[in-house]
């Protein structure tokens, strides 16, 4: 018999390193040990031997063999107990053990497996085949080790990546998942299967429906998805951000088998992204948007302004003598000052958003375009994304200069700085970001040349116009406070009895130095600045007082019509203004007529109707001014609880020459009468117009043909003369 040729175990090392494997052979039969040793060494194994179970356990601990051959029946501790003990050792769980039993001893074989034997061999041992048996066991062991290592690596990798996986079987609403999935989703770690609601237990309420929807739809429609959601995690004070991905799997016939998915905690990742974004777009010292961010906002403001055709302004400012603060108090103090300045700027811009300037325009979308940015050093930019006029920017600039000039307390030291502001306006001063920035900067240097602590527009024309309006605003304010405004009254006459049916109160302003200023010029300023509120209240009150005086003087009572600004309606002051005027004057409310423009009802008809109802409750009459110029839908009209329509003078003007206007006026009168409303035409200037209106059964007329607006004392005289018999044709040609 020739020497057997074993495959050399040394060369079969799976990890590429030269390695020999150690066999622990346990047998009380020394001859067996000797012969097995020969065979195993020939095959490349190293052998360590023991002659009883106790020695075997000790040798296992000392040598950590890769394989064990264990005789069953031995003195001291038999093979079965030795196996049981080795299996309980920390490293002994997976070591392959070959049990040697008697051929006839079936019971021993069963017992051997029970105790943890890997395989068995019956006596007498065939020492030639033994090494093959061992090599087979070794290969199985190495494969198992590799699998365990790979599984363990995968688990570790998934744990490190906070990546869990899950699976959903076809035709089942049950899910299975990994332990890491449980950890990521804040579920009990030991539970790794369940229904969809178990999975989503910790997903925040606002996201849960969305996640469920995706999972169920992916299942029904057999498609993949990738979503992110937030989760309340037991181990975290803040919400975690989770990304869930799923893939639909199909068998070789293309039939959908299951969904396989992952979940990953990407909170740190998204936080980092946010942080990167903040670093790139915000100033570290003040937290304000930085230069890059400003340019983006400026770009958006440009697009919006071009589309909506409105103006916007760029305010470029720096702090005068900031360097001195920095040098004398240190950089930390300088930073502190910059922070305080930035919060004052932010506050002003926020307040600017809150000021509603024009009731016809919604500023909701535009107001977000206002922003404050720090360019670096002591330079700031305020972007007013939407302005009505250049002087809006001037107003903000003045408030900024005023607020920045207030004292600061820094390290118990009181510091005062001032600011100089340059302003550029789109589109007058430039059509692109760079030009607008450059011009605002240039304007600031001009302002500095003129002396610090002030503002300057880039364009001289805009600057002067803004200052002029500014001046008007200030003077108007003074005029209202001093009650140096005056009222004029224009009579209205009724066709049916040829009597004076009422007067319309009109406000006039005679400026100290500039002379009379048209209401068309100062009313818009009053509305934009809010001065219309005290002005409107004063007009209402003064008109009622004057009316009551005429009644007291014995004139036949007629009504006084007072115009009401949309701003008074919007701010909700009108009801109180009326109430106040009635109670101060003692006028019977039936002699007060409130004139409203129909534009008021375009925005919110229901709110408008509500105000009208409340006016009616006070007992006053309500008329719609400028009728025919605003909304086209007549269906509004029947819903409005009003008494009278006033036909706009633009229709009356061409009544004699334009058949279209005549048709409109005729139609309005017929319509109004059918709705139970009376009609007045304003702007009547000729006998011809008067005759036509009379023919259309118009109820009242007002205009230069009857009378110009008159001062109260002139009107008293006019009323007196009119009341004298035989003198009527001089005044009115009915």
């Amino acid at each position, binding site marked *: *018999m*020739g*020497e*057997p040729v074993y495959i050399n175990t040394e060369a079969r090392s799976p990890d590429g390193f030269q390695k020999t494997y150690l066999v622990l052979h346990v047998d*009380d*039969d*020394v*001859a*067996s040990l*000797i*012969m097995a040793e*020969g*065979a195993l*060494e*020939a095959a490349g194994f190293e052998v360590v031997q023991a002659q009883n179970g106790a020695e075997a356990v000790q040798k296992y601990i000392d040598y950590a063999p890769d394989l064990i051959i264990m005789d069953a*029946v031995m*003195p001291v501790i038999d093979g079965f107990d030795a196996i049981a003990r080795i299996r309980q050792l920390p490293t002994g769980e997976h070591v392959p053990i070959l049990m040697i039993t008697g051929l*006839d001893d079936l019971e021993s074989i069963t017992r051997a497996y029970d105790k943890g034997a890997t395989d068995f061999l019956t*006596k*007498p041992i065939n*020492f*030639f085949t033994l090494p093959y048996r061992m090599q087979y066991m070794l290969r199985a062991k190495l494969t198992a080790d590799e699998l365990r290592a790979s599984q363990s690596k995968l688990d570790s990798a998934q744990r490190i990546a906070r990546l869990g996986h899950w699976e959903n079987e076809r035709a089942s609403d049950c899910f299975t998942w990994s332990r890491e999935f449980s950890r990521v989703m804040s579920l009990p770690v030991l539970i790794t299967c369940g229904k969809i609601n178990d999975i989503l237990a910790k997903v925040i309420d606002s996201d849960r429906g969305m996640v469920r929807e995706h999972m169920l739809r992916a299942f029904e429609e057999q498609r993949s998805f990738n979503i992110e959601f937030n989760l309340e995690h037991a181990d975290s004070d803040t919400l975690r951000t989770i990304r869930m991905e799923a893939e639909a799997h199909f068998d070789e016939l293309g039939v959908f088998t299951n969904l396989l998915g992952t979940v990953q905690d990407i909170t740190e990742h998204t936080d980092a992204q946010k942080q990167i974004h903040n670093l790139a777009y915000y100033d570290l010292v003040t937290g304000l948007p930085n230069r890059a961010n400003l340019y983006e906002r400026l770009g958006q403001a440009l697009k919006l302004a071009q589309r909506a055709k409105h103006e916007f302004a760029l305010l470029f400012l720096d702090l005068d003598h900031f360097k001195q603060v920095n040098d004398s108090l240190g950089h930390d103090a300088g930073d502190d000052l910059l922070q305080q300045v930035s919060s004052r700027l932010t506050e002003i811009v926020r307040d600017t958003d809150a000021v509603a300037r024009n009731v016809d325009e919604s500023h909701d979308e535009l107001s977000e375009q206002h922003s404050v940015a720090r360019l670096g050093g002591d330079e700031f930019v305020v972007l007013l994304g939407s302005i009505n006029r250049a002087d809006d920017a001037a107003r903000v600039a003045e408030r900024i200069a005023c607020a920045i000039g207030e004292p600061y307390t820094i390290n118990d030291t009181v510091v005062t700085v001032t600011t100089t502001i340059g302003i550029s306006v789109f589109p007058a001063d430039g059509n692109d970001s760079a030009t607008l920035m450059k011009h605002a900067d240039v304007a600031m240097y001009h302002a500095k040349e003129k002396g610090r602590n002030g503002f300057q527009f880039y364009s001289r024309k805009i600057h002067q116009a803004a200052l002029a309006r500014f001046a008007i605003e200030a003077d108007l304010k003074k005029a209202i406070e001093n009650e140096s405004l005056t009222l004029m009254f224009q009579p209205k006459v009724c066709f049916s009895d040829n009597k004076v049916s009422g007067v319309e109160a009109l406000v006039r302003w005679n400026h100290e130095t500039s002379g009379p200023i048209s209401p068309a010029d100062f009313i818009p300023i009053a509305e934009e600045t809010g001065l219309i509120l005290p002005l409107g209240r004063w007009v209402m009150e003064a008109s009622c007082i004057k009316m009551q005086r005429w009644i007291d003087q014995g004139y036949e009572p007629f009504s006084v019509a007072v115009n009401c600004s949309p701003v008074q309606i919007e701010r909700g002051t009108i009801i109180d203004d009326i109430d106040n005027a009635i109670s101060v004057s003692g006028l019977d409310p039936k002699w007060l007529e409130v004139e409203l423009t129909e534009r008021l009802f375009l925005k919110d008809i229901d709110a408008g109707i509500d105000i009208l109802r409340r006016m009616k409750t006070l007992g006053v009459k309500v008329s719609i001014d400028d009728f025919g110029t605003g909304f086209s839908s007549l269906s509004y009209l029947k819903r409005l609880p009003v008494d009278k329509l006033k036909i706009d003078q633009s229709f009356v003007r061409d009544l004699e020459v334009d058949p279209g206007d005549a048709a409109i006026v005729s139609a309005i009168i017929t319509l109004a009468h059918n709705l139970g409303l009376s009609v007045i035409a304003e702007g009547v200037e000729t006998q011809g117009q008067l005759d036509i209106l009379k023919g259309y059964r118009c109820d009242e007329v007002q205009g230069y043909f009857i009378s110009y607006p008159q001062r109260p004392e002139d009107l008293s005289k006019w009323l007196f003369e009119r009341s004298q018999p035989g003198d009527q044709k001089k005044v009115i040609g009915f």
Partner: protein
Amino acid sequence: MNINLDVNTLQSISALQRPNKPDLLERVTALFESESPKCVAQVLDGVAAKDLEMIRTGSHTLKSISANLGAMALSARCSDIEHAARTDDLATCEELIQDLNAEFEATVAGIRQFLQHAA
């Protein structure tokens, strides 16, 4: 007496011999000659003392070590004795040990003869 010595088994032990190592067959047979008389004595003493555990241990060991050398008849006899001892059958044990010594001597002689031939 047919000692039933399996020569193939003895030859295959030689085949396990590795170069530059002590002679395997010599070691095994020497071991057999030194250990097996103790086993035989243990079995015989056990029967005399009616100690079944003693009989069982001795016969079990002798069964294994004789099988290792191809002494199949001796091994089979030991197996029978072990089984009888395990089942508390002292009478069978007494019967089976009648020729045990003679069979053992014949086996030892057979092995020595094989070794001489092999040498």
